[in-house]
């Protein structure tokens, strides 16, 4: 019998503990946003209004993107929010990478699951079990703008301004997704995603403001190794 695998199995279990077992559904009302003339666009991509088709096509042209982010976390247990700076890197092929500057922790979400890296280069993670929640997978679908997958998880409303600004409000359809999010609000201009608000109920909310976008940068081999799995 091989004893080598025990701790890895333990790790998967612990990831499940960390991300699944303690997560409870928030119980407050939906975060009140500011959608402009909301329009239900919960339809298959090919059946969307023309302006949304055009926008999605634009968003899909983004193969890679790098940006900085400013994350503001609102916790009910703390009177003032926690502010975190970081870098975000996205590749349609390699997944999503979030580098938190203050804690020097890196989170990689890709098709294989979740990978966390510490400043010392230590890694842990793996294919997430079903109870790991929907946060990582949903984030990945959002950055891919994988409309068909998002439609299976959310009721989607959106609006577009003549200036090119657009907003989306995603409301979970099933209790499992509701455990992770009460609602998700995304704001952007053209192919540039500006703000993502992950509303996890009255006790918790995360606002991610992205800036300094670089579209379709060519990641070097070293960068790919640094940012992704």
């Amino acid at each position, binding site marked *: *019998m*091989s*004893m*080598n*695998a*025990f*701790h*890895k*199995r*333990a*790790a*998967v*279990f*612990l*990831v*499940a*503990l*960390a*991300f*699944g*077992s*303690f*997560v*409870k559904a928030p119980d407050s009302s939906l975060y009140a946003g500011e959608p402009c003339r909301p329009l239900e666009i919960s339809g298959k991509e090919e059946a969307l209004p023309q302006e949304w088709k055009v926008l999605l096509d634009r968003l899909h042209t983004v193969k890679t993107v790098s940006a900085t982010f400013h994350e503001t*976390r609102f*916790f*009910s*247990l*703390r*009177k003032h929010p*926690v502010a*975190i700076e970081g870098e975000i890197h996205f590749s349609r092929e390699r997944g999503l990478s*979030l580098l*938190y500057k*203050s*804690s020097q*922790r890196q*989170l990689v979400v890709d098709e*294989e*699951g979740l*990978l*966390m890296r*510490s400043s*010392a*280069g*230590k*890694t*842990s*993670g*793996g*294919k997430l*079990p079903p*109870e790991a*929640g929907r*946060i990582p997978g949903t984030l990945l679908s959002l950055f891919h703008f994988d409309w068909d997958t998002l439609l299976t998880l959310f009721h989607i409303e959106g609006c577009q301004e003549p200036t090119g600004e657009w907003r989306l409000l995603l409301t979970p359809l099933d209790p499992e997704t509701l455990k992770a999010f009460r609602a998700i609000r995304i704001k952007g201009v053209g192919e540039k995603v500006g703000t993502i608000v*992950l509303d996890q109920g009255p*006790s*918790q909310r*995360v606002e991610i403001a992205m800036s300094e976008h670089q579209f379709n940068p060519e990641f070097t081999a070293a960068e790919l190794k640094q940012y992704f*799995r």
Partner: protein
Amino acid sequence: MKFTPSYWFRATLLFVLLGIGSFWLSSLDYSKHLSSDVMDLLPVTEQSPELSTALRIMRDRESRLLYITLESTDGRVPTDATVSAFVDSLRASKQFKQVTVGRGPSNPEKIAEWVFAQRMNLLFPQWLADKKLQYASLKVTMPDVPPLDAWLAADAVRSINQFLETPESLALAETLPKDPLLLTTSLLRLQDTLQGESVADANTVAVLWAETKAPALSPEGQAPVFAVMDAARLTAMKTDSALVMNYIGVHRYGAESRTKITQEITWLNLLSLIAVGAVACVFVRRLTPLFHLVAIVALSMLGAWTVTTLFFNPVHVLALVLGSLLCGEAIDYGLHILLHRECPQDASYAQILRHIGLPLCMGASTTIIGFLALLFSGLPLLRQTGVFVASGLICALAGCWLYFPLWKRKTDWQRTWSGVVPQPRRAWVKWFLWLFLAGLSLGITNVHWLDDIRDLDIKHPELYEIQEKVNQHFGASGERTAYFSVGKSPLEARDNLETFQALRIKHGLLPLQSLDSVLPTARAWAEANAFRQEHADFPALLIRELAANDFDTALFANFEEQWKATATAPDTLNLLYREMNTQLDGPLGNLMHCDASGSWLLGMTPPDELQTLTPPAGSFPVSQLQTLNVIFTRYRESAAEISLISWALIALLMIVVFRWPTGLMMAAIPLGAILLAGGVLGWTSGAINLFHLLGFFLGFCISMDYTIFGILARRDGRIMPVSILSSAITTVAAFGVLSLSSVAAVRALGISASLVVTFAVLILYIMLPSRRSR
């Protein structure tokens, strides 16, 4: 042939004994009475913690796990429907106690809730110990550091603030008011120990584990389970025809070993019989004497099986494989009688038996004593082999006395071979042979001991391949050494693990990765409880600190209640360990074990650790190659002692019966043969082990038989009796067959024993007068 009362007595006794033996053997349930379990080769009462732990693991639930992977040949991950169909089929079979998708335990939520509820008992002691260490080192550099409790409160709040900036806080923030010391996040420490190790799975494989109801090494835990696995695969293939299933577990190794060993015993015995029969044909013509020889061998085998199964339950099949040499030895007595030429042509078998009774009995008794001496060995395998062969030889000897006098003796079936084999006639030839043998014996200086448990192993290359494949998906990578820390109670095992961890840290090594961060030592637990009682105002300090840092303190109101709920019953921790043990199942359950017979905790070195540290008492490597080899060395030393004592006893017996110096010469010749056999091994491989030693010993006992006849012939000025030559060749043939075995231990025994017999006969051959010198 006269039908005297003696004739009828012999015939009746023979048939009664045959009847008893046959009845006993036919009444046995061989599926239960014969074992192919490698652990049955080891003593049940083995006191060494290494072996007793290994024995327990093989018999406990840890060995009942099957590790399963499902994948598609086209590279797709099997769909949920396919996996569900597979799992449902397994569950419906009732062969399994548990079937779980994934690698984790079957009840992660329940475990998480339980650990969370017990956090002040399980996690707080380690947290406090770590913080005290930090505080002590801080005090060295900062003399004005606040008191411990105030510093702990400030440090806890600082940790919360830092934690809120981590990715995982998004999932765990809600638990912080219940767990402001972040004790549950210490669970993630275990995950952090997986440094540098990727547990990434190819996203194309579904992994599962299943625990069988029947023990892995029992027949019920093998064929029926494999049938269910195949049926489940076929069911799942209805939704995915490209599905490929791989699974591995002790069950498969057990079944494979059983099959191979059964084949081994069948062909070795058959080949042994054929070889011995062929040799007999060289010396005897016509079918009638061959029939007599077969009858003696059959009587011997019947007796050996009867007595061995009477005394041992279960009997290991490997003992029967080794016992297959019996037919080579048992036939000797028949050949001695059939090929005897010193009595008149018209002498009956009864007269021949009276004539050669003493040397025959002496020769047999030395062999029987030798084999019976194996009863003093600690290894069941050796004890069973000893009883099997000794009882078989007694039955062969008794069979000769009962069987042969029932027949009229004829002499026209003897072949006249003695003149055909050239004997050294000139002195220089003899001297040349002596010099040659002396040169051979020098090889003994190259001999060294190499005790390797793998000698008992039966190789399963195809299963190793599957194991490697499945392990990859269960996350095995990097070279690691696993250690067991054992104890009579869980806490004793934990203390032994703590001692080992301290030793590793002292030697600059990273601690072993284990469950120790969630299982406190008794000392740490008692200290933590005392701290909570001594610092009853700590919750107030913490709340004050939280308020100063902008937290909503109302949410943390319950912490004081938790702080004061101190469990002080002495057995609380032992009970918690046992509870943890019952909660952890599946692969994770391998990390600890507690039951009435003892407890162990498993610790793993970080990957690819270069330095090897000898663990302190109470801990030992899981690798049986290291631990069991040491134990095998112990058994080898014990076998060597038995051999020496037996040799001394046999030498004494020879001197008493045949007087000085004939008796001593009789004992010295087989010893010289051992020296020569060792010399040959020294000139070839050089490495010998317990089983070579056993072969030497058996060869010694058997050679005594020939030596007695040979030396008596020399004393009477006769040439080498053909009966010795024929007997020796049958014995070498029987042992030679063992050297073809796929089990290295059996091979070692066969080669060494046949070498000893060969050299003993060669020495006799040189010593005995040639026809010309007669």
